[in-house]
């Protein structure tokens, strides 16, 4: 089921043997690594070849450069496929947006080719296809998204092979600490923008503050990349919860796929937890939630990461899904526009729904990785120079882009960026959107409105305690 998409964006200069294949980027890398003088020489050679390409391609007034190859690793199949569900759609949106090529900092218009590889939701496979993209397809830039299990192995490969990699949709702590970075030893090639546990904890507690509880949380952190990151006593949620005035009962590092949760439920019930939180894979949450009903554990509010992100998951849970809450990092109400096409977030959702009849889904956020890539290309004065990756030149780093990207303004903090997160609740379908049984309402957007994000997102719902 490996899905491979080699479609080029089809610029007029595409056919010229000199624009695309004459000297691969890898060849330049080998040379460029030796001395600075050679780097300059290589750059000059590239300009020369590009000029040839222009004359043989003909027609284009601004000149057409060689094809830029962008690799994209995504879980199209396997257990994470819900994260990659909208990625094929996004690739078609991207291709449409850069149909005529991208005018880079070198004054040339470069056709952009996007090569998609399926990670099959397997970390090892993700690393393999990432290596394949670099060594066999000769890509210039890597893109990846969809949980630490996809992002980390791909970013590691890019870092090892010296290819710039842009990613999102993975909390920054598992990405940063999970890959062994320290403030003194940052990554050289890999760039990431997503929220962190400080954000998710702020939106969780901010929302819980809306209703009276005993501030005692039952926490379900599993024994996987996400759960371990969330549970970490230093860099995870525990100190943040304490700082926000909440106590918690730890349900322990259970294995994904655990079928019975009696021991945790008993612990939460006897401890008197009135809030449920954690990060589950979907089937485990449903199992847990039904057993909670059976065992009489009835928290007033339940805020769960990962398991409740997608509308289809709520539909599969049924009526006991109403009132559950999750974090929202992208929605049609986020007031942003695409830097590529000018589409608003609502426009993108509409295009998605028009393409397949499905309700909007948060991974449409992946759109932004390509925006960052195009932005870096536009500022790249020499597309063949190693120094031109998004962080090569100090001034070229995607520090604080002046434009709006569709997920929010990535706020650069040392080597990591955060996107704003709002908080929402799954409400019963009202008259507003009768097409789907569940409707996501934003119930607390105060975290996004606060510094450093300063993004006003309209709140369209109100948190109420779960009705039993």
């Amino acid at each position, binding site marked *: 089921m490996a899905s491979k998409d080699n479609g080029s964006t089809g610029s007029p200069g595409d056919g010229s043997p000199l624009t695309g294949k004459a000297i691969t980027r890898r060849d330049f890398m080998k040379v460029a690594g030796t001395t600075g003088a050679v780097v300059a020489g290589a750059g000059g050679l590239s300009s020369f070849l590009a000029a040839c390409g222009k004359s043989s391609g003909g027609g284009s007034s601004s000149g057409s450069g060689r094809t830029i190859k962008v690799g994209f690793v995504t879980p199209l199949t396997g257990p994470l496929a819900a994260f990659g569900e909208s990625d094929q759609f996004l690739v078609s949106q991207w291709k449409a947006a850069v149909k005529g090529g991208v005018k880079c900092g070198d004054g040339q218009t470069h056709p952009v080719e996007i090569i998609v590889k399926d990670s099959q939701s397997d970390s090892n496979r993700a690393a393999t296809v990432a290596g394949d993209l670099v060594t066999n397809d000769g890509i210039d830039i890597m893109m990846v998204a969809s949980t630490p299990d996809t992002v980390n192995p791909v970013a590691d490969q890019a870092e090892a092979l010296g290819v710039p990699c842009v990613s999102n949709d993975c909390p920054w702590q598992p990405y940063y600490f999970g890959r062994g970075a320290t403030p003194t030893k940052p990554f050289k090639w890999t760039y990431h923008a997503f929220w962190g546990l400080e954000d998710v904890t702020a939106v969780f507690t901010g929302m819980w503050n809306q209703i009276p509880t005993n501030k005692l949380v039952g926490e379900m952190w599993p024994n996987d990349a996400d759960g371990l990151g969330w549970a970490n006593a230093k860099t995870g949620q525990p100190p943040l919860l304490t700082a926000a005035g909440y106590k918690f009962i730890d349900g322990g590092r259970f294995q994904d796929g*655990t079928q*019975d949760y009696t021991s945790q439920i008993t612990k939460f019930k006897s401890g008197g937890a009135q809030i449920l939180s954690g990060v589950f894979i979907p089937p485990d949450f449903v199992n847990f939630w039904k057993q909670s009903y059976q065992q009489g554990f009835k928290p007033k509010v339940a805020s769960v990461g990962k398991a409740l992100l997608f509308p289809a998951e709520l539909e599969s849970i049924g009526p006991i899904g109403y009132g559950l809450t999750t974090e929202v990092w992208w929605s049609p109400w986020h007031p942003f526009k695409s830097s590529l096409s000018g589409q608003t977030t609502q426009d993108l959702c509409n295009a998605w729904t028009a393409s397949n009849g499905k309700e909007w889904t948060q991974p449409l956020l992946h759109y932004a990785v390509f925006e960052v890539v195009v932005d870096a290309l536009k500022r790249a004065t020499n597309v063949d120079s190693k120094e031109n990756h998004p962080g090569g030149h100090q001034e070229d780093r995607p520090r604080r882009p002046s434009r709006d990207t569709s997920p929010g303004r990535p706020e650069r903090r040392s080597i990591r960026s955060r996107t704003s997160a709002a908080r929402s609740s799954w409400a019963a379908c009202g008259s507003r959107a009768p097409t789907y049984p569940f409707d996501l309402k934003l119930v607390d957007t105060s975290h996004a409105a606060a510094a450093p994000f300063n993004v006003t997102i309209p709140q369209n719902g109100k948190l109420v305690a779960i009705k039993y």
Partner: protein
Amino acid sequence: MNWVNVAVQGILLGGLYALFAVGLALVFGVMRLVNLAHGDLGILAAFVTLGLITHAHLGLTWAALLTIVVMFCAGYVLQRGLLNFTLGTDDTRPIVVTFGLAIIIQNTLLLAFSADEQGLEGGRITTASIHLGHQLAIGWYPLLVFIVAVAIIAGLQLFLNRTKMGRAFRATSDDREAAELMGMNNRHIYSLAMAVSLAIVAVAGIALAIRTTFDPTSGSFNLIFAFEAVIIGGIGSIWGTLVGGVILGLAQTLGAQAFGSGWAILCGDVVFLVILALRPRGFFARTVTA
């Protein structure tokens, strides 16, 4: 009292494991076929039920019953048309073929239904429970699944012991060549055994789908528990799968209660390995592998 509650949930969970295991035990007992697609066939049944509900607008009960019939027929065709050709001297052939079948099922389901989580809506029974005292609560749904598992296993045992066809199953299991010499059509017997196996795993798949959510890749998750239940109970033994399932369920829930929730699945695996070391043929093995 907490411990009693945890133990009761473990026993009931064992019913679900036994449902997945019994079909596996049957086909291994009758024709020495290790069916690696067993879990995925259960999930396939859940998707068939879902399809009947959403497209044919049947109620859950009718959709489930029709699915069981469909899976019975599919099992016969699958064995007659494909798996019979893999049986013979080389034991690895059916393993490779059913492994391939598992991949085909997963990806076909992915194409047809996408990767979305799906659920079968079981209504209030899935969240209701009988409260006995403050700390002991027995969910109606796990109880129902356990009862169904016991009923199916009892029925299958009666079928094997009391009916002519059941005798044919046992005869083929005991000595393939001798049974053939007596005029039995082994290919037909094998196909019927696979049909029964898939009908039962359809029940298991639907039970799982109502219990939690499922997606095209859920099948392999349950296969490992099914294998452990079969081996603990004894290869080829029908009642043994129930015992194996219950031991596995108890080990997981009691292990979680005793050592912390991270130990649940590990405790099940450790108990399985200990039993495998001490009693390699399980508790109630009936067939002797050559």
